[in-house]
């Protein structure tokens, strides 16, 4: 048996049971789901009727619990299930949730909290103020260690093929940390400005905000970070690491090659890029028109790489991999992209004037801009490259540009918005047509079309069907073909090909058939996107580094093992309501007849960037912005930490899971959640506590020090309309306590309590009540019917004044406090999947023999302590927990005795 007892929950009841049992010599495992022991009591201001400081009483107990030699306290843990075996022992599935903080190293300095860029309601302050995703539960937390709240990977980050922490840079921009946002992207790739312009932003398709009014403009935010960074004068500003003596050759300077070079050079590798074209950048430089991606933006990104000492040899085609090895390179990364164009294989394709889109776009980017004035151009293809070619032809003065594609408009592989922009620029779309051939005498004069009736077969394989009887011909002076791209596999005969148009590499490690050669990007995957190629370049660098350090190639840490993606419905369910935000719309100044290649998309203003990033819903809670990691002076934060599950065997279980507070908005006539100056008594207790969320007692509507404060008793208790006929037993006394504390803190304040009757049935409770009255608190017998709000935030309370004739009276207050009752916590039922833990008529954990055997439940060996079995004040909770501990001890001794007798009987038989 691993432990004698499992105690679930570490409120005052759980701690008391654990301490009593520990003192008796039993080994106790205490599991607490929050990051600190202490439960609710530690959050209170003072306790009644002694007005002792709650912290002063709680913290020694918390410290004793944590440091007791017989108690193992697992904070930030969960019990996933408890099963009882035939011997009466319990097998418990416990899970240590990842706090992402090394508890031994964390000093509780709170610098991670200050640096964190995500604000969420602080449950330890009754939602009156924000905490951060990185947080220490409360100032007296035991252990005083930070927790990083990570519920999952945000959909934007999860979907980014580049592996960029998308949520991270969005939250940094939201916090005004623009340079940090740039660096967050640069952690992955040097191509920040490029991706900010030319990425197709799959993150935006996944943005949870898209389920509301519109996704946030994530790509443009990245561009904003890049524009801001490159607006500085001290660039490129990169640190060159110390050389590690090893060299890596990279073939190709597209997104995969540049990213791999960037990552390797930052780790001290000597990197040389070999580029077959006269200028670096691959398809980004040669295929993407400048109106989408200005050369200057790309060059600024590439300058980051060369600033690290990476040498780029242009106009250098490499095919002999062995020679690279003999030249002293320890590893090679092939990242040549897809420079070859697919052919239509139709009549007339060899006529002059029939050209591939890649060569057409390349000529333009290298300065040889053909004059198309007075000419008609046909562009064949339905993808993004075809769109780029068509829009470029428009800019070169073509009289007419016809785009012809097999697919119908809605099926085109090009992005919908790109098709629209092309049409806005007067490109004429002929969708649903295939190419029968080209006609002309030496030079192309027309393209002949045949109707395409279907592009894909029943299995969705590309297998176009045509109606040869439906034909037309379009006259043209230039035909540009953009129907597919591939890698030149013949260039590397020693590398195994993957079909005829790509290289073969292990999809996880990117290692090729030659162990020292890795291949990344479109050279392996075929035509994809810049972001995808960036992701593969990043992966290749990671694997090459491991290979050269003699480590096993395996998963790409931080990418392959990231947390599961957040469920959007779960994210949206966190709020009861959403206010529509103004959408940051992009209105491009498109011309029907564009004349030049000037960049179309305007930069984002700072106001737009902040408004746009402000819409982020923080799906995963922690944004992975990395500020806590960078700030922590103890290097204690590790976002790669994993939760740990284990099964333990125990002899008994104590359920001390406490209660839930009544949700005050279920009494709509009192206006909680509608009027900001209506608060709950738990919120008032936080305002009265020394560790209060505000600087003093203020009303939440406008920060005013309240002068007239009303209490409404029995909110959600003794109330059949909310299905809770029970008295919560301690609301009267905590209200009386708060009345006294308020009058102490705000001597000029008037406190009025609207009550049904005051239940002061405890030692010195009546005197405590009398003391509040003598201090000046007014107690008015009668129910409150309704609360309404005035323009100044004051509240008009309409009530029955029973002791003065039963009249209906209205009174005005600055602040109203709802003395909310308690509700049962039904969570313990889920702890026992194989046996039903009995609940009483009010859904508290049932005690079968409450009078004579308090704490015993229907499951032998399972006990209940404290308010999990019903409403109790602190004193009664402690008494009950002590009784439960005695019951546990009796149960364990009975079991031990039975075992001893069984053993003795067996020994007698053997003798």
């Amino acid at each position: 048996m691993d432990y004698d007892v499992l105690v679930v929950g570490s409120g005052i009841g759980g701690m008391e049971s654990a301490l009593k049992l520990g003192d008796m010599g039993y080994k106790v495992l205490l599991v607490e789901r929050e990051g600190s022991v202490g439960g609710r009591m530690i959050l209170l201001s003072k306790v009644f009727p002694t007005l002792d400081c709650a912290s002063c009483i709680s913290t020694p107990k918390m410290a004793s619990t944590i440091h007791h030699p017989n108690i193992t306290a697992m904070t930030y843990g969960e019990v996933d299930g408890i099963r009882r075996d035939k011997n009466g022992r319990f097998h418990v599935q416990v899970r240590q949730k990842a706090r992402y903080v090394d508890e031994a190293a964390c000093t509780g300095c709170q610098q991670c909290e200050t640096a964190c860029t995500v604000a969420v309601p602080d449950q330890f302050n009754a939602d009156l103020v924000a905490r951060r995703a990185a947080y220490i539960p409360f100032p007296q937390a035991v252990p005083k260690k930070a927790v990083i709240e990570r519920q999952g990977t945000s959909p934007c980050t999860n979907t980014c093929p580049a592996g960029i922490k998308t949520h991270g840079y969005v939250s940094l921009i939201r916090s005004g940390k623009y340079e940090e946002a740039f660096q967050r992207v640069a952690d992955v790739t040097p191509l920040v400005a490029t991706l900010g312009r030319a990425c197709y932003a799959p993150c935006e398709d996944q943005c949870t905000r898209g389920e509301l009014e519109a996704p946030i403009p994530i790509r443009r935010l990245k561009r904003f970070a890049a524009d801001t960074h490159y607006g500085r004068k001290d660039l490129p500003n990169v640190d060159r690491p110390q050389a590690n003596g090893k060299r890596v050759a990279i073939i190709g300077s597209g997104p995969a090659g540049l990213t791999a070079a960037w990552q390797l050079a930052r780790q001290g590798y000597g990197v040389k890029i070999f580029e077959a074209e006269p200028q670096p950048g691959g398809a980004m430089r040669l295929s993407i028109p400048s109106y989408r991606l200005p050369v200057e933006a790309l060059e600024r990104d590439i300058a980051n790489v060369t600033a690290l000492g990476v040498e780029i040899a242009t106009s250098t085609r490499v095919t002999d991999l062995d020679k690279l090895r003999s030249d002293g390179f320890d590893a090679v990364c092939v990242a040549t992209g897809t420079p070859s164009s697919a052919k239509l294989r139709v009549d007339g394709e060899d006529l002059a004037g029939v050209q591939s889109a890649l060569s057409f776009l390349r000529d333009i980017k290298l300065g040889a801009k053909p004059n198309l004035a007075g000419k008609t151009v046909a562009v064949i293809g339905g993808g993004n490259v075809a769109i780029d070619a068509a829009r470029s032809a428009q800019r070169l003065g073509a009289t007419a540009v016809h785009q012809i594609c097999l697919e119908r408009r809605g099926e085109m592989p090009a992005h919908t918005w790109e098709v629209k922009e092309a049409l806005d620029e007067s490109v004429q779309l002929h969708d649903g047509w295939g190419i029968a051939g080209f006609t002309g005498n030496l030079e192309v004069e027309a393209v002949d079309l045949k109707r395409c009736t279907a592009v894909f077969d029943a299995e969705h394989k590309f297998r176009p069907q045509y109606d040869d009887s439906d034909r037309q011909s379009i006259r043209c002076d230039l035909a540009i073909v953009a129907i597919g791209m591939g890698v030149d596999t013949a260039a590397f005969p020693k590398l195994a090909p993957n079909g005829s148009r790509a290289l073969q590499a292990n999809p996880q490690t990117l290692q090729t058939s030659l162990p020292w050669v890795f291949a990344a990007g479109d050279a392996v995957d075929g035509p994809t996107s810049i972001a995808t190629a960036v992701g593969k370049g990043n992966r290749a660098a990671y694997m090459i580094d491991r290979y050269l350090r003699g480590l096993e190639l395996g998963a790409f840490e931080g990418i392959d093992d990231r947390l599961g993606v957040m469920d959007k419905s779960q994210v949206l369910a966190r709020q009861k309501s959403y206010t529509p935000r103004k959408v940051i719309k992009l209105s491009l100044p498109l011309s029907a007849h564009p004349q030049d290649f000037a960049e179309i998309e305007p930069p984002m203003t700072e106001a737009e960037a902040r408004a746009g990033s402000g819409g982020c819903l923080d799906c995963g809670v922690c944004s992975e912005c990395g500020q806590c990691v960078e700030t922590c002076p103890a290097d204690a934060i590790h976002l790669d930490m994993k939760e740990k599950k284990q099964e333990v065997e125990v002899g008994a279980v104590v359920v001390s899971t406490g209660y839930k507070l009544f949700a005050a908005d279920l009494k709509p006539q009192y206006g909680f959640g509608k009027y900001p100056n209506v608060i709950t008594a738990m919120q008032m207790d936080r305002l009265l506590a020394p560790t209060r969320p505000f600087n003093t007692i203020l009303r939440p509507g406008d920060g005013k020090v309240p002068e007239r404060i009303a209490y409404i008793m029995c909110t959600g208790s003794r109330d059949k309309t909310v299905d809770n006929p029970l008295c919560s037993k301690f609301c009267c006394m905590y209200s009386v306590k708060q009345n006294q504390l308020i009058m102490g803190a705000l001597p000029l304040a008037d406190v009025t309590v609207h009550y049904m009757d005051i239940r002061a049935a405890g030692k010195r409770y009546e005197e405590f009540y009398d003391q509040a009255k003598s201090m000046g608190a007014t107690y008015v017998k009668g129910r409150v019917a309704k609360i309404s709000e005035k323009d100044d935030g004051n509240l008009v309370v309409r009530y029955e004044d029973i002791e003065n004739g039963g009249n209906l009276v209205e009174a005005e207050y600055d602040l109203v406090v709802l003395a909310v009752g308690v509700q049962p916590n039904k969570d313990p039922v889920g702890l026992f999947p194989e046996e039903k833990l009995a609940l009483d008529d009010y859904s508290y954990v049932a005690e079968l023999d409450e009078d004579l055997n308090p704490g015993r439940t229907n499951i032998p060996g399972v006990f209940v302590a404290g308010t999990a079995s019903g409403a109790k004040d602190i004193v009664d909770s402690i008494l009950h927990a002590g009784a439960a501990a005695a019951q546990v001890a009796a149960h364990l001794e009975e079991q031990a005795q039975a075992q001893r007798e069984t053993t003795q009987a067996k020994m007698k038989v053997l003798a």
Partner: protein
Amino acid sequence: MNTIRDIREVIREEPVMQREILAAVKLGPMTIPEIATAISRPADEVVFWVMGMRRYGKLKESKEATDGYFRYGAPEVRS
């Protein structure tokens, strides 16, 4: 004028609002209603932002309340 939005939605905006609030109090400490007027946002939302900023040391309250309101300003930086 108070307009209650979901608390999580309001609190999430604190990082965005910090700069506006700090700009508003640059000339001197202000009460919550004054800040609300300056940045054209509801006072109940400003309470969340100001208290969040105060918690993490970006704002500090005046010692005494005047006419029931404390003033909040940027904390003095000690040289």
